[in-house]
């Protein structure tokens, strides 16, 4: 089954417009090289720069996988996450730009962190939201995070940014 995931940040009322498109084939991890399209990555939003973009290694590995892969990467296969530290692309909202990082060990998310603006109202508004969302990340892993309905603003961009981090971990 093929699935495509794309993200558009900044529509309707925002200034920054960024499109990140990545395509992946599941199961299990047979990543197609993702592409990042930055239409207007200015206005305080850093251009997406996935730290783990190594399309060279993974596609060939998964195509020839067969049986040897099964024992090797048991944990990683379950979640499709590869060990390492990944940063999501910065997600802009009204309070500023939030960037989420996750650490993957044995195929599981073991830590999550987020940078957020610390000036003006942002310092007051963002930290509690981020703190709370962090725990969600550790418990829920990727599958559940993509489909939560909630109020927008910080949580919306956090989710988006987290999604980018998870995508990077799968590549």
């Amino acid at each position, binding site marked *: *089954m*093929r*699935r*495509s*995931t*794309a*993200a*558009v*940040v*900044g*529509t*309707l*009322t*925002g*200034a*920054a*417009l960024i*499109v990140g*498109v990545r*395509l992946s*084939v*599941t199961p299990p991890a047979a990543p*197609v090289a993702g592409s990042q399209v930055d*239409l207007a990555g200015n206005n305080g939003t850093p251009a997406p720069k996935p730290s783990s973009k190594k399309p060279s290694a993974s596609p060939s590995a998964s195509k020839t996988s067969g049986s040897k892969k099964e024992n090797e990467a048991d944990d990683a296969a379950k979640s499709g996450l590869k060990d390492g530290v990944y940063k999501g692309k910065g*997600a*802009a*909202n*009204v309070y500023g730009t939030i960037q989420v990082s996750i650490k993957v060990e044995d195929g599981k998310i073991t830590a999550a962190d987020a940078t957020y603006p610390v000036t003006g109202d942002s310092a007051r*508004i963002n930290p509690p*939201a981020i703190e*709370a*969302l962090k*725990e*969600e990340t550790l*418990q*829920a892993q990727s599958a*559940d995070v*993509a*489909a*939560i*309905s*909630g*109020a*927008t*603003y*910080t*949580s*919306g*961009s956090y*989710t*988006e*940014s987290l*999604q980018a981090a998870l995508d990077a971990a799968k590549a």
Partner: protein
Amino acid sequence: MGTAVSIELVDDRPEAELRDLIGEVCGWLHEVDERFSTYKPDSEVMRFGRGELSTADCSADLRHVLQACADLWRDTDGYFDAYAAGPLDPSGYVKGWSVEVASARLLAAGSTSHYINAGGDIRMRGSHPEGGPWRVGIRHPWESEKLSWVLALHDGAIATSGTYERGDHVINPRTRKPARGLKSVTLVGPDLAIADAYATAALAMGEGALTWLAKLAEAGYQSAVVTDDGRAFSSGKLPAAV
């Protein structure tokens, strides 16, 4: 405010076709941004708001949006108000509407299973990649790592408005004061734009919205509500999974 939109297509078609479909959706959302943004002085909405465009000169899309906002203003007894902040700002309708149009276009192009999530407001069709309905959690207002409800549905829209993200920044357009009484309002129904507008209006109404939401349930829009003091309400046919 920027809105993050994520799109997932579930389809066996070649990658290039899926990439094209995603590209078309992104193109449409950017077009909407250009034409309807209140942050862009030259957008059609801003020109109309300044009186530089007559109703007759508007695009069919803008006429649709204006009509829908007027209908919603009536349907919500004035609690959904595109003029709440003064100048015309139909963003509260445009966001959901643009996603509705995108989803309908995907369907017309043969994509029967997909979801589009625009900042926590979600339009879905068909089935999850692993089969079965799409499962969507509704965020708990105080414990964001927990969910108040888990919903499961194949086709439809889920929109949530809450005061937990913006504090008291949701204004009751009739009193011009911060809305009180409800912490989180979720609407589930066939149209994302309407579900979103209803959720926003209910939040502005406060606890009195409960009787109004009960009426909406009969009209096909189910709801789940959490009050400021932590009581939870849901309509009978809410598609709860657990």
